[in-house]
């Protein structure tokens, strides 16, 4: 083990693989070093750099909850070199991990409030860590509402998890797809339409509430606008950014928006934080 090389990853063993969609896969990873497996902690919202020797590193959030100890999960979409290489791994293979990096969701500020989670596409990954964390401490929060949207029924991730949330009596769960495909006819029980539109019809109250929004940049933009219309002020809207990263700790200069480093000052921001940043840079 190496302690003073900040670029040196931990080794983690791949212990479970789940296919979420045709191009999104979830890995369950456990530290090879038993001591680390015991001592490793992180906070919901943090991220890491996952790597394969010879292929490189890629940034993913930690998608499992910090309350689930002994392992972490990540879900990734196949988009390029490293994510393609990761897909070739099998249970038992090794994955490099650097992290956890970044700030975290301000869960302490959410206690005793109504929480509205809005997730779009693979943006449910960082949200899932927080939702599970909140549900594991359910009594400390008021009403919990989850709205999840995907492009089509084929793009829905964490199906089992969604069903479990939907089945809970202490959670209001809504789901939507942008469009229905012919083969979905009669099989889809959720909404059809874009997230901000569905949100506008859900009659959620902004009173004593915090909204947490994760998804692609365009969805975040329109969802924040809709939440504002519903009466949420910017400081009670929380989101995450996914600017491209290399180092994860403020050196490589890739992730900044103005003077704000997404890797160190984020990736979690409030909508009021975002509005203080130079607009066109994210």
């Amino acid at each position, binding site marked *: 083990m*190496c302690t*003073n*090389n*900040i*670029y*040196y*990853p931990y*080794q983690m063993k791949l212990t479970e693989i789940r296919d979420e969609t045709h191009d999104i896969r979830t890995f369950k990873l456990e530290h090879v070093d038993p001591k680390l497996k015991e001592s490793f902690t992180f906070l919901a919202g943090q991220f890491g750099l996952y*790597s394969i*020797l*010879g*292929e*490189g*590193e890629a940034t993913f959030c930690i998608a499992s909850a910090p309350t689930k100890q002994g392992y972490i999960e990540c879900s990734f*979409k196949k*988009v*390029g070199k490293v*994510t393609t290489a990761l897909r070739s791994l099998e249970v038992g293979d*090794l994955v*490099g991990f650097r992290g956890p990096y970044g700030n975290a969701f301000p869960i302490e500020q959410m206690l005793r409030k109504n929480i509205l989670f809005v997730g779009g596409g693979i943006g449910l990954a960082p949200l899932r860590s927080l939702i599970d964390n909140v549900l594991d401490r359910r009594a400390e929060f008021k009403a919990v509402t989850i709205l999840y949207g995907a492009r089509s029924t084929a793009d829905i991730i964490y199906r089992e998890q969604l069903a479990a949330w939907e089945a809970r009596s202490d959670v209001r769960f809504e789901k939507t797809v942008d469009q229905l495909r012919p083969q979905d006819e009669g099989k889809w029980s959720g909404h059809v339409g874009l997230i901000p539109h569905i949100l506008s019809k859900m009659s959620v109250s902004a009173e004593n509430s915090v909204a947490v929004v994760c998804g*692609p*940049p*365009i969805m975040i933009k329109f969802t924040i606008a809709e939440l504002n219309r519903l009466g949420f002020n910017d400081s009670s809207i929380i989101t995450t950014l*996914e*600017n*491209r990263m*290399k*180092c994860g*700790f*403020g*050196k*490589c*200069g*890739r992730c*900044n*928006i*103005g*003077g704000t*480093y997404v890797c*160190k000052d984020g990736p979690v921001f409030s909508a009021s934080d975002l509005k203080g940043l*130079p607009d*066109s*840079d*994210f």
Partner: protein
Amino acid sequence: MKSYNSSIVTKQGLKQLIENILAHKYRLLAPKKSGEQLSFETILRAEEVVLNQLLRTMTTLSPKEVFFPRTEPVLRYTGQEMHDVEPPTPETVLFGIRPCDARGLELLDKVFTWDYNDKFYLKRREATTIVTFACSDQASVDEHCFCLGVGGDPTASSGSDLLLSTNGDDAFLLEVITEKGERLLNSCKEGVELQASDKRAADQLEAIKDRFVRKQDLTEVRHKMPEYFDSDQLVQETYRCLGCGICAMSCPTCHCFDIVDEPKAGTLGEGARVKNWDACSFALFTKHAGGHNPRELQCQRCRQRYFHKLAYYPQKFSEESLCVGCGRCSRSCPVGLDIYQAVTHVLGKGRA
């Protein structure tokens, strides 16, 4: 802080000092002609250090690569096995850098120690003693230099361990700035005649200031950022940028890098994870996996470079600008882009 101590040393004495540095098995790096360019090279014989030349011409590339090489392994691997890498750190004397470059290193220190210490940079810094040449010669300052406009000073000692400046025709003033500098001098001064003096390089500052054609203060830009961020003037100034990245490569303080795995050719499963210089002027630099690019246009990327230096860094790390005004970027830009000119235009202060 050590109280300074200065001495006068003749040209001959300085040559002897260089001989001694070599005799003591230090690795000596100094500006040397390499093809058409002046660059920091390993010096094997004292005559290779051409004092006159080094006072007159700025190196094309900055000395940052002594500490932050353009490419370097951060780990090596053989199959599934990883090996840590130690940066090579021979005791080094970096001789003949400019005050702007020395200050640039202090600015980089803040980045490479921000909560996470980058040992590759820091170990090299520890192993290196910096002997700076103040820009005291008639010809040291050219029409691109603008250190005065970004809080610098052509005679300043910050970042240096020893500071040399000219003192008449055939002699130099040698100031000891740090204990590290003192250690180097003590170990290498046999046969070097040092005549105590109460002068300092800074005494010449007023006279040197007159040689600058670029004296506008750029630091003000940081206080009016929102206003300048969407400046049409800046778009007009920068739309012709080619995105070649030469500015960033030659800059003493640009520190963007990429991390990639490079398999070793002709082997099965051997290679290294390397840190490579990168630049915010490259179109793919910030492109997301989903295709979205926060800085889609070349003028947005130029703006990023200028404002990172003049507004974002000061906001994040200290009141200092990340640009030290060395002028390298404008000397080398193939289309004549010029941070000083662009920013002074934006500030509405007219052409320099």
